[in-house]
Each structure stands twice: as structure tokens, then as C-alpha cells.
């Protein structure tokens, strides 16, 4: 196996041998669509969906740079132009190298796309989960060259929905994807420090349904008795599985003020280039992005994030919602518990009343979700229309003037009165 570095095998990880490691390189996985987040992922991968009013990926890259990582490798694939356009050739002055994963054949396969750039211990981080610099530092602190891998693990009562972990001391003894067994209390937070030999181990890992998973490769290491360390991380860890989870992510970030914009008053974060009319009301916690405009008499918040260049016209009410870039809410419209994609239009007097509803995703019904609606990129809810709670509106779809929409409005279609 070319470039393979031999590493002592077996049980050797005592803290007396531990050597602190500052790693230089990180491989960020940003190639996956996130199919359960459709229709929001029509034109962009999950890492570019909004966490409050910035892409999830921006939080990941900031955490890495703040933890001292200077060499950034992004594995891109699905709608990769969007990632490349957003991040650019450098991010905060650090060079970004792109590795294209033409087909999304699993996280292990994704990591292998960057293998030529890796020659020492390195980090792997999921690009679609909000993490902090402290978490990245904790994983690097715990990792030593004698470990096959070190994983950040977080306590969560939803561990069984993600990659679940069992620890024995600081050793991971079990790593299993979505076990559907609620006795698990720890989840894999998607921050890995890896020895370079793990690349060869990934390659020899058995594929499942044609896909090569990083976690399978690590589970093999555990089975072979190699040192896989788990380090408990604390703080805000947040991600979205379904579109309505983006509302929770925003609420989590706003609750701790983890946003970019300056705090104007307690819990009210407003970018300097935004214009907020003197007669508008901002209810904390709320964040208003660059070039956003809020008209007279509008009420925005609480738990609301407005992306760049969004508009909330006179007298409109926006509550508990995430409005992505270029979304425009017309005068006297009401938008509650909604997630909009880019360039969505909500006409004057339209109503998205919000509240709990059963939401249909594919063939599955998710009961009693708090969701006003999901409106994908450039969807148009015209003046005076009403959208029932739990409605999913596809990209370029429209709800005509005064019409009533519920359930699912497919891409490019129109609901008429």
C-alpha cells in the first residue's frame, strides 16, 4: 500500500505516553446532498443550508481556523459550484484545496479523495454539523500518534438517530450508525483526528451497498483492538436531519448568541449594512443579515434569522422562522415557523400561520412537527395566499393569489384558487 506508515498495533494508549498534537490539516466533508432535507437541497448541498443566517459550513470552517488549522481540504461533490462560490480559493486567508468526489459513495470514499494531500495525522470534520473551536481543540488535545483515531462524542437523548457510541473510559468500544435503540446516550459528533495509516484502512474496509463509510473503517479498528479514543465534548453541537430542524438549529444558535452580526440590544443582532425602519420592532432573539431591509411597522422575531439581502416589508410579521438570502416578505404578510430557501417571495397579505402539523416526507409521515412551511429556492407565495402548517413548497413552485396550499406543492407547479 503506497505511503502507508507502520504503526504499533494493539493496546497502547496510556496518558504517560500521550503527546499533545496540534494538527495542521483538516478534511471537511461537504459533498453530500442531504436527501432528507429536500426540497431545500435542490441547488445546494446540506453544508450550505442556513444555520441561523450563515451556511452550516461557515461555522465548521470558522471552528477549524479558530482551533489553529491552516490547511483546509474540502471534499465537494453534489452541486459543488455552490460550495466553491461561497468559500472561494481562500477562507479567512487560509488556502482551501478542493477535492471532487464525483459520486457520493460514502464518507470513507470522500476522505480518500484527499489522500494525496495527507502525510501526517489529520482531522476529518463533517461539513454539515455546527461545531465550535473548543470541540475541535478537545479532539486534537486527546489525540496522540499512537491512536488509530480520536472521535468527539456528545451526550444526546437523540443519539440513536445519529452515529451512536459506547465508551469504556476514554476508549470507544462500540460505534454504530442509527441503532434504533434508545439505550445509547452518546453520539459521534463528526470530528475525527486520524492517523495517516487510517487512509489505507479505509481502502481495505468492506463496502456496504457499494458505499465506503468512515465509521465502518473506524469500527473495524475497534474490533481489531486498535486504540480509538473518544473525547466528550461540550457546548453547542447542532445539525439538521429534516428541513424543520433548521428552525431548531437557528434557535440553538440564537440562544447563545453564536452569530456574526453585532449585538444592538440584548439578543438583537443586526448587521451594519442592514436597514431597519425606526417604526419596526425586533423581538429578541433575532439576527438580521447584511443588506437586509425591514420596513415600518414590521415585527420580526423572536427566534428568527434573516439572511443577506432579505426584505420584510411594512407591517409584516415574521416569527420563529429562518429566511434565507434574497427572501422577500410583502407588506402585512404573516410568516410563522417557516424555512425559506433563496429568493423566495411571500406576497402582500399572504399568511403562513405556523403551528404543529403532520408533515409528509416521501412516504413517511412525521407527526406533530412544529412547522409553518418549507418554501424551497425561488418559490412564490403570492399575495393573499394561505399556506397550511406543514406544507412543503418545491423550488420555483407557486401558490397563486388568494389560493390555499397544504401538504406538498411539487417543483415548478402552481396552486390556483
Amino acid at each position, binding site marked *: 500500500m503506497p505511503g502507508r506508515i507502520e504503526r504499533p498495533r494493539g493496546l497502547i494508549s496510556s496518558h504517560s505516553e500521550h503527546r499533545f498534537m496540534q494538527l495542521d490539516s483538516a478534511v471537511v466533508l461537504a459533498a453530500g446532498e442531504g436527501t432528507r432535507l429536500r426540497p431545500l437541497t435542490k*441547488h445546494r448541498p446540506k453544508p450550505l443550508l442556513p444555520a441561523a443566517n450563515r451556511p452550516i459550513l461557515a461555522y465548521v470552517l470558522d471552528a477549524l481556523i479558530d482551533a489553529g488549522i491552516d490547511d483546509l481540504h*474540502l471534499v*465537494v461533490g453534489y452541486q*459543488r*459550484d455552490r*460550495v*466553491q*462560490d461561497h*468559500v*472561494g*480559493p*481562500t477562507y479567512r*486567508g487560509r*488556502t*482551501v484545496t*478542493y477535492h*471532487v468526489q464525483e459520486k457520493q459513495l460514502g464518507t470513507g470514499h470522500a476522505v480518500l479523495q484527499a489522500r494525496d494531500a495527507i502525510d501526517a495525522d489529520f482531522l476529518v470534520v463533517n461539513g454539515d454539523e455546527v461545531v465550535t473551536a473548543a470541540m475541535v481543540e478537545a479532539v486534537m488535545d486527546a489525540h496522540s500518534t499512537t491512536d488509530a483515531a480520536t472521535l468527539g462524542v456528545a451526550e444526546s437523548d437523540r443519539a440513536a438517530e445519529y452515529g451512536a457510541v459506547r465508551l469504556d473510559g476514554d476508549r470507544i468500544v462500540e460505534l454504530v450508525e442509527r441503532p434504533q435503540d434508545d439505550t445509547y446516550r452518546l453520539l459521534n459528533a463528526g470530528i475525527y483526528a486520524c492517523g495517516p495509516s487510517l487512509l489505507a484502512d479505509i481502502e481495505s474496509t468492506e463496502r456496504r451497498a457499494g458505499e465506503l463509510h468512515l465509521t465502518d473503517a473506524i469500527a473495524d479498528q475497534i474490533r481489531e483492538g486498535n486504540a480509538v479514543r473518544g473525547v466528550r465534548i461540550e457546548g453547542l453541537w447542532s445539525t439538521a436531519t429534516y428541513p424543520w430542524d433548521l428552525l431548531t438549529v437557528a434557535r440553538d444558535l440564537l440562544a447563545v448568541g453564536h452569530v456574526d452580526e453585532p449585538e444592538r440590544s440584548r439578543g438583537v443582532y443586526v448587521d451594519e*449594512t442592514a*436597514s431597519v*425602519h425606526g417604526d419596526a420592532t425586533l423581538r429578541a432573539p433575532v439576527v438580521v443579515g*447584511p*443588506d437586509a*431591509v425591514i*420596513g*415600518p411597522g414590521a415585527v420580526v422575531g423572536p427566534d428568527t434569522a434573516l439572511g*443577506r*439581502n432579505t*426584505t420584510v416589508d411594512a407591517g409584516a410579521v415574521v416569527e420563529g422562522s429562518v429566511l434565507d*438570502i*434574497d427572501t*422577500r416578505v410583502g407588506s402585512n404578510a404573516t410568516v410563522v415557523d417557516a424555512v425559506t430557501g*433563496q*429568493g423566495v417571495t411571500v406576497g402582500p397579505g399572504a399568511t403562513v400561520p405556523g403551528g404543529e402539523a403532520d408533515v409528509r416526507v416521501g412516504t413517511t409521515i412525521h407527526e406533530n412537527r412544529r412547522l409553518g412551511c418549507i418554501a424551497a*429556492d*425561488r418559490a412564490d407565495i403570492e399575495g393573499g395566499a394561505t399556506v397550511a402548517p406543514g406544507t412543503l413548497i418545491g423550488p420555483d413552485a407557486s401558490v397563486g393569489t388568494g389560493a390555499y396550499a397544504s401538504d406538498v406543492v411539487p417543483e415548478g407547479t402552481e396552486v390556483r384558487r
Partner: protein
Amino acid sequence: MCGIIGYVGDADETLSVLLDGLSNLEYRGYDSAGVAVGGDGLRVEKRAGELDTLESALDADGGSFAGPVGVAHTRWSTHGPPTDANAHPHTDASGRVAVVHNGIIENYRDLRDELEADGVTFASETDTEVVPHLVARELRRGRDPEAAVRAAAERLEGSYALAVVVAGTDALFAVRQDSPLVLGVGEGERFVASDVPAFLERTRDVVYLDDDEFVRLDAEGWTVTNAEGEVVEKEVRTVEWEAEQTGKSGYDHYMLKEIHEQPISLRQCLSGRVDELDGRITVEELDDLGDPATVQFVACGTSYHAALYGAQLLRSAGVAANAYYAHEYATSPAPVSTADLVVGVTQSGETADTLSALREASRRGAETLALTNVVGSTAARESDHVLYIRAGPEIGVAATKTFSSQLIGVNLLTAHLTDRGVKRRRDLVDDLRGIANDVQAVLDESEAAAVVEAFVDSDAFFFLGRGLDYPVALEGALKFKEITYEHAEGFAAGELKHGPLALVTANTPVFAVITGEGEAAKKTIGNVKEVEARDAPVIVVTDGVAEAGRYADHVLDIPKTNERLAPLLANVQLQLVAYHMAAHLDREIDKPRNLAKSVTVE
């Protein structure tokens, strides 16, 4: 049209700094490159071809190129073909003096005759070579190196930015006249270059040199003097741009990266300039602009197409306006007086033809405005007013995002001249704020890549448009010919039957740009029917308002927006058409043959 860089600093770093600088300047020209490293001695290596050829020649030399000063050059031929001999740096017979030059020395023939009469033998066919021989003659006459370079520069007529090293002197001398030259001030090292990106990775502190200024750089520091030898106080400015031109963000070409950057660059262009709450457009930089009787645009290439569009916008708003090729205007200007405004549209702010036209207008008393992308560029400094388009650095030789930002720039100018920040334009403000999203929609959904596949083996490509779509037809054809090398022409749609229709056959695809529902759109649909009658395949680029798609073999859709902004979106489709055709033909997309990014010679 060339790029130069000079360096004074760490002897072991000189060569690598110079080569990095050349690589960053490659967009300025690339048919030959060379480097000279000085100090006690002087070593020169130069090669026809791209930078790689020079680098392999240097590798073959081994690492003997060390010294505290050096100059380097990337060339785009104006005098003499690209050969090793014609590549810069040029030296004198003794090999003591090495010179790199950007510009044209107009009196080189006379100087060459004079030097040849003196017994000097020339090694190249370039105008530049007179400079090292002049310097060497002054040295032989007993002058010190600085005085010798000054005396030589005094003899030169034309445009030049020169950097000179002399063996035995740990200093670098540079002088400019009508060609761009900037000084970079780093920690223990100093630079001169044609453009900031050459050294942006090492320092952001720059000094823009003015005409007739002479600079000496050495280990101690730098001194700028005027033609009389008096010291000039210069302001050190900090450049804000990221050194991001080093990366293509994972794209195969800068051009595609820049096409995709348009939503971002348009947001930057508009930020703070449109006020949604007020429904007003306000451009602070233009506050002290007068109320001109007429507006004359001067520009070349892609910028000329933005100028044509701008002139039409102003005319439709009731302001007398015209667009002129800057190179024509410089020699045969339109009547112009102190009551008029002359607008130079130039991405780089260094386009020699446009600078000449602006100077001519200024000499005749007109108010001047530079519409440019480069802060501190010559056009920006020499004009009475400047409106920056804020598109960020553009590396691809074929202009894309800067054209879109220029179109927004002339919209801002038109709104300023006609509304004076007083009149409300709620619809236009809404549509301007939506333009980035509309461009994103085109990028997300364009069928251009698939459409061009059908036309790979065509004889020629024609582009039609009327009204505001006409400049876009011209620009679409220009982009296409620049990077595909296929024959392409843009026509005013109405002109078709007055001649060009004779060229139309079943093997000449016609791209028709049809936006809005006005009389212009209806008439262009009539022209589309004319070419269809000649069996030409028709591709319509349209917002669908006039239902033009019914008459087309293929349709490239754009979102509906304000009629004056629709041409910008249509142009994005045509950028993608040109790009995908060129990619299909495997062309050198970022560096098309014979072309250079900013043309700083007339």
C-alpha cells in the same frame, strides 16, 4: 502589453519572489518571460513561451541565481515576434545593465540609429533594447548608476514603466511614463510591479507612482523623486483585496469561477447604493458630479459594450449620450465642451486607449468620470470623478463578472443623473436588489452546456439583438470569438437584411437575444423568422415575455425582471454558451491566443 516586477531584499528569495510575481502577472501577457538577478554580478535567463519554459531553463541552470536585487518580465509582443532574443530583460553588450519594460518607446528607431552609429550592436528587434545601451553609455561616461538611468530615461519618448538593475549595485531603479507602476513596501523587502497582484502575497502596503516619477529601492528603503530630482512625499496605501487570484476555487478555469462569482460581485456593487425603504438610488461618490449637457462614453472591447448599453439607457431617460471607441475618440474626438461629461469605462483603469481619450476630453475642458474596477488605477486618479464597480479581481482574460458590474454601474450613473437621489424608483430598486438572485437562477438552471453540443461543427455563429439587447449580442459574439476561436459576429437585428443575411445558412447557428415585450422584441422576432427561412438553427435567449421561444429551435431562459436589467441576465447565458463551447473545443480559456487582459499600449 507586458507585466514587470522588480525586487530588493533577501538574496536567497529574489528568484522565487520574481517567479511568483510573474505567475501572478501572467494575465497581462504570456508569449515570453525572463528574469535578471543582480548584486555583485548579473545573471539573466529568458525564454519564448509560457512561464514553465523559463522555469525549466532555470532548473537546468541549477540554483546559481542568488542576489539581493532582481527584475522579471512577462511579455505580450508589440515589437518583434516572441523569441528568446526578443524576451526581456534586455542587456547592454557588457552584460552590466538589465532592463524590463512595459509600454512602447516611440522614438526607439532614432535612438537605435544613434546608438548603432556609436558602434553599438543590437541583439533583438525590440524597442526596449535601446534602454540598456543608453544606460551603459551613460555609465561609460562616468555617471553613477542612478544618474545613468535618469539620463537614459530623459531621452525616451512614448509610454514606459521601466525597472533597471546594474551589476555591482544593490539597488533597483524604476521610472514610469503613461504605463502603470506600483511600489510595494514589505518587511525588509521592496517591490515594483505593473500591478499589485504581483506582490500581494508578500505585502499589502503600496505606493502608486505617478508619471515622470523615479524611484530608487535598496536595502535601506525607497525614495521617489520627480523629473527634476526633487524628493516627492508619497502616501502609502493598504490594499484591501485578498491575494485570492492564486486559486480557481476548484473550477477548471478562472473564467467559470468568475461567471459563478457574479451573484457575489453584484451584491458588492449594489451594497449601500440602493435604499429599499426610501425607494432611492444613492451613489455617494457622484455627489459632486455636475449636471452635464451631454454624456460621452469612451471604452474598448467588452467595456465598449457596457458603454453602448449605458448610452442607450441615458438616451431613453432623456439625456443626450453616445458611446465611442476610445482609440477612435483619442484621434477623432466628438465635439465636447466644459458642459459635457466624458465617462471612461475600463475594468483595469489602465487601458491606454481609454486613458488617452479621457486625457483628450479633459484637455478640452470636459468633466471626466472613470467607471472602473481597480482602486487607485490611473483612470481613477486622473479623472474628476470615479465610480467603482467593486467586482473584485478578475483573472480570466475574457471579461465576465466585470461586464455585469459595469452594466449595474451605468444603471447607477443613469439613476443619479436623472433622479439626483430625489425621485423614487421603487420598481427599479426592487429589481436591482433581486438581480443577484436572478443571476443565480440562470447559473442554477442554464441549459447552455447541452445546447452548444449540437453546434460544434458549425461554419460561423451570429448573435442578434435590438435596443438594449444589441450591446449584449455584440458582447456575446466577442466572448465567443475570444475563447472559442470560431468565427462569431454580433449584429443589430434590424441590420441583418441590409447585408449580413447573405452569410446565413443551415450551418450558421443564430443566437437571438429577445427580452421584454416592447416593439423591439416584436421586431427581433421578425428577424428570427427571416433567418429561419434560410434554414439557420435559432437559439433564443429570452425572458419569455414576448413568447419568442415559439420561433426557436432551442431556448435559453432567463427570469423576468425589469426590462433594463434583462440584458444582463441574457448575457450570463451567452457567457456560458461561449465557455462551454470553448471547453468542448479544449481551448486555452483563461489565456486565449494573442490576447491580454488589460491592454496598456495604444
